[in-house]
């Protein structure tokens, strides 16, 4: 798989070319693999500490309308992420399938 090569993605544009999308693009119930979080040193570290590290599977549980926060499940824990935060987390969306 291509994303496993962990290339040096540095900006949004490059990332979007790699079949990846911000977490905010997932549908409710859809899963994705975290590729990278873009953002300040502190934010990226904090996301990693809460379990959102590259390669981990996330599932979008629900979202609020009007650029509201999102709730995701990662490593067996439900996390609420503000829209701004979530839009900085890039994932490779997985096909929607029956729980697997």
């Amino acid at each position, binding site marked *: 798989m291509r994303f496993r090569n*962990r*290339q*040096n*993605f540095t900006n949004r544009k490059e990332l979007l070319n790699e079949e990846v999308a911000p977490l905010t693009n997932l549908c409710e119930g859809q899963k994705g693999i975290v590729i*990278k*979080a873009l953002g300040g*040193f*502190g*934010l*990226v*570290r*904090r*996301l*990693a*500490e*809460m*379990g959102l*590290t*590259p*390669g*981990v599977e996330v599932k979008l549980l*629900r*979202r*609020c*309308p*009007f*650029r*509201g*926060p999102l*709730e995701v499940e990662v*490593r*067996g*824990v*439900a*996390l*609420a*992420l*503000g*829209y*701004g*935060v979530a839009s900085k987390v890039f994932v490779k969306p997985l096909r929607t399938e029956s729980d697997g």
Partner: protein
Amino acid sequence: MAKQLRIALAGNANVGKSAIFNQLTGLNQIIGNWPGKTVERAEGTLHFKGYTIRVIDLPGIYSLSTFSMEEIVSRDYIAVERPDIIINVIDSSALERNLYFTLQLLELDAPMIIALNQVDFAAKKGMRIDVEKLSEALGVPVVPTVAISGMGISELLAKAIEVAEAKLSAKPLKVQYGSEIEKRIHVLEEIVKAKLAQFCMLYPARWIAIKLLERDVDVAGRLKNYESGKEVLDYAEKSASELESIHGETSPVIIASERYGLASKIAKAVTTIEVPPKISLEQKLDTLTTHKVFGYPILAIVLASMFALIFSGGGFISSSLEYSFGILKGYIESSLSLFLPQYAVDIIDNGLLSGIVAGITIALPYIVPFYILLALLEDSGYLPRAAFLMDSLMHKIGLHGKAFIPLVLGYGCNVPACIGCRIMETERERFLAAFAVVLIPCAARTVVILGLVGRFIGFHVALALYIFDLIFVFVLGRVAFKVLPGEPVGLIMEMPPYKRPVVKNVLVKTWSRTKDFIYIAFPIIIAGSIILEALRLSGFTNYIISAANPLMSGWLGLPAVTSVPLIFGILRKELTLILLSELIPLESLTAVQMIVFSLVIMLYVPCIATIAACKREFGWKKALTITFIDVALALLIGGIAYRLLSLTMQ
């Protein structure tokens, strides 16, 4: 003499750490602050098997980096104060995330055991955890517990003592990273050992090396105190950059990923999914209460019924309390006047006793029940969901969803609400939140608004004032957010599953908030009361009335005497109504005057106790800034309201 032992409880938030702490220490707790920090410190003592054990409840954190003050406090306590043993409380239903923290504790080389908590909850989710296997994998004893029922607590203590006495030879797991990282850690560790021998007395050398690789600001900052610190730092910097170019991630992310990798491996190896989890009642409740459409009306109904319950029930309790205290005061007054001069009786009676009564009649009927209900909402897991729903709105004033919690606390008393702003991540966020919090009408102000506007004009007008207040908070918060430099922080918050709240924890939480009122606000209320009475007796108030007259009648259109309750309201807000009614009959005020009066009371700085709380949290400069802005705005809005309302209501 009993043998002494110090235990520290460490773990993530929402894992039942406080429940274990409460089980261990009962009500033998001292809750204060860490020295020099605005981080709460809870300590308790207990006696067990001939030991006197001091238990410290460290703040609930997810990592031992330097993201927050709580994390620094925790790791310094563990490394520097060296408790005899650490009990790492972990939530069995979220093993992977909890083990991430456990691995970091292991790196600190502290003697520890694990309380595998909420095993009942994990079982309900269909998960079974092999305790033996987990203990083997981590190299430390593991005791399964259910803190809320007390299951496993005495085994936990017994095990803690065994380890502390070193009867159990534990071989803690050594956390190993990938070879490219491990190589660099090893070299750096040797350098640290050689160059920073003194620093290694405080922390394990390997830990220092890892932290340096992680670009830990706190550790790096401390190296500056050492002669060869710069040299070590430069080398660490070089190693970290090398790692970053290999992985294309920042070094903290690389190391966090590795730790999570290990945590995940251990978690998977010890967990068996027995039955596939089915949709539980809690999950249905979760879906409903965070629903993008239904979530909001539910939130409104929950809050509205809470307020209705408190203020209708509270009014009844409050008036019956006042009645009984009134009789008591009468007795004291008549017996005192037998041997004391009249002015001394007045000071004691109208000053001291009224102050005590006022404090009690606010705290018991309003603040305590309010905080009990709020703690119930919080512990059940509803409050984080409310914060989730409110996130978008809070972003408009530069905050995020979590700020909703101190704002709601503010409706009880602003003092614990100001302290509650600590849940915000940065100093800027805390200040912005506090700025909004002090504008929230607390129970005392609600008593005034309901007692004046609500009683004489109508409940709908009182409600309108509340809605106006919310809009005002919103607009002002937005201005403050634009004016204050700095970047807003986004929401990253764990959503704990719904749980049945535990009575003991709810009571402890209620007490810890109410005590802020009792220790900070109560003495000030009493002192304020005495000063007020002394001023009244000395005739000083007349000067104030004439001095403030232009502002009062000219600008606000209020009777001149209202300056007394308005000025002294800063000592005790709930007193303003009583003071006013002593000076003039309340019925003589026009509707406009009542609204203007209530508006000013509602908006200008809550009370001296709140200013004191702000000072404690943010320092004098910011506390006085808040005070000044609020007073100026209250007068401005009051004057405008007077003019606008006079036009429309006459």
